[in-house]
């Protein structure tokens, strides 16, 4: 009977189809993972231990990695200070033009990195009133640590604001309402209710902001080629001496970053467990 056969064979066929699809999905996932990991692993394993040790005694390398870390850390702290109230406002208030403001926050992610550098220089230079004013009060942007921090904050800020905002949105507004009705001001409510429930997102936001900042190259080379942050130093070693001399610097930067981020993640997890 035709219909009977259909009823028996159809489910078997669709299962086989589903299996095939899963295999296809697995295979393409493996390609993606390999695509990401293979070059990184190769790069990490290629330099000899001697060259790694040698690099570590190179003061320029140490200085550039340290500069990268602390300028990115400064960018994360600045994002925390200025981005937190902003993220809270975006999470809690509805106003006309909110979508527009939210897309402004995302702009630094979208625009090409050299453009960021050029844009910042165009207001920090002598041809702009703000640049002239900044120079009058002693703030130099071009080729300074200040300039570096400025650029890194610009590119990292959206990552902090968006992550912190998601954290604030996850705290039910009713908890804040109850806190207010129990006598706590808006600020105390933030400190006693919102912050303890959303701080993990804020830490993750800072990590993401710092990670983005530490990897910045395009905007940095325009605003401050010197003092050299690690990515710029790597680029210089690559163009001057070739791949072999840029690899150890890259490996050290990756190792230091991984260690720092792991430490922060562990810290946030352990605090969650003891809380």
């Amino acid at each position, binding site marked *: 009977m035709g219909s009977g056969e259909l009823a028996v064979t159809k489910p078997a066929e669709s299962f086989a189809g589903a299996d095939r699809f899963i295999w296809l999905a697995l295979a393409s996932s493996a390609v993606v993972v390999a695509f990401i990991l293979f070059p990184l692993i190769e790069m990490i394993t290629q330099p000899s231990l001697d060259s790694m040790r040698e690099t570590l005694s190179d003061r320029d390398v140490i200085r550039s990695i340290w500069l990268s870390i602390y300028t990115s850390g400064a960018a994360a702290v600045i994002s925390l200070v200025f981005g937190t109230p902003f993220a809270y406002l975006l999470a809690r208030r509805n106003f006309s033009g909110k979508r527009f403001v939210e897309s402004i926050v995302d702009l630094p992610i979208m625009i090409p990195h050299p453009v960021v550098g050029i844009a910042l220089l165009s207001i920090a230079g002598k041809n702009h009133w703000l640049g002239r004013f900044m120079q009058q009060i002693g703030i130099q942007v071009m080729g300074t640590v200040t300039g570096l921090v400025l650029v890194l904050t610009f590119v990292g800020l959206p990552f902090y604001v968006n992550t912190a905002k998601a954290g604030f949105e996850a705290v039910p507004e*009713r908890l804040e309402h109850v806190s207010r*009705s*129990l006598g706590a001001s808006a600020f105390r409510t933030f400190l006693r209710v919102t912050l303890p429930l959303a701080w993990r997102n804020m830490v993750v936001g800072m990590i993401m902001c710092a990670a983005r900042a530490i990897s910045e190259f395009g905007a940095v080379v325009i605003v401050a080629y010197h003092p050299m942050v690690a990515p710029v130093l790597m680029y210089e070693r690559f163009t001057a001496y070739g791949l072999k001399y840029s690899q150890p610097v890259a490996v050290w930067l990756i190792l230091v970053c991984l260690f720092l981020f792991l430490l922060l993640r562990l810290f946030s997890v352990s605090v969650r467990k003891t809380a």
Partner: protein
Amino acid sequence: MICIDQLTVRFPGFTLSDVSLRVEKGEFFTILGPTGAGKTLILESIAGLVPVSSGRVEVNGRDISRLAPEDRGVGIVYQDQALFPHLAVRENIRYGVRYHRQSLSDPEGRFDFLVDRLRLKHLLKRKVDNLSGGERQRVALARALAVDPKVLLLDEPLSALDPNFREDIREILKQLHAETGITVLMVTHDFTEAHFLAQRAAVLNGGRVEQIGSVRDVFLRPSTPFVAHFVGMKNVLPARINGGRADVEGIKLSVPAGNGHTRHIAIRPENIHICPEPSGTGEPNFFSGTVSRIINQGFYSDLEVDISGVTFRTVLTAGALMAGGVRKGKRLYLKILPEDIHLI
């Protein structure tokens, strides 16, 4: 005492319009209404948690309309309790105490009293995530009362609870109200809760107050078709009324004398009596009809009976339904006492 005067709150797609009501000192008052009627919005307006478009709110004679929520002395307990998940039970209850050091004469004594009355002693160290619904609600009540608010606002405190917890919390609310004498404004969609707890009620529909009165009065003498339906008068029918006679689409009924403004009659299903035999033929309000629909509600069934094209709803126990052999299409006789017919 709470006095709300012409309160209007506008949100996109919803408006709470010109709500005025007065809750006396020490009174237990309920706002009744279906979901989406704007009940919670009234509470949040009193607590200062939503922007009010116009109107005034007074508590104990003081205009609090412009005050920040923390300066109003208004406690609020939400349906979902809104306990602070990062704090243990004790810290939840004590949360607001530090802001009321000056006004609270004996915060420790008050804490002990509430912990005792709400049976929370064994839970004080627990995390709030591990509590049952009833326990959570008791913690939320203790937290709100620990700071001795001038008024207590309850947003459907019973509706999210299991039936056995519900009775427990209901008893506790009644007892606490009696012992503390606090002014309570409770929002609910359940008339039984209002009956058990409150002295007076306001019925809200679509952001407007339909009726205010004693709970008994609202239940027995609803003033609008909506309120009648809400308090369980499932037969709300448009009628032409003349003296002691009502005409419902051609059906003539004897009714109590109206005041000349009535447009509807309302009858509770349980007041429409079913007679198996035509023994009352010729008496007033005795009709024959056909069962058009039976809705099984478990222990009882709702019956829709068609009388000359007009549907009346009555109710029959499961036993009576079976014993009488009642089924769709069966002919029945209905009797309605004139005094059971409410005129609106």
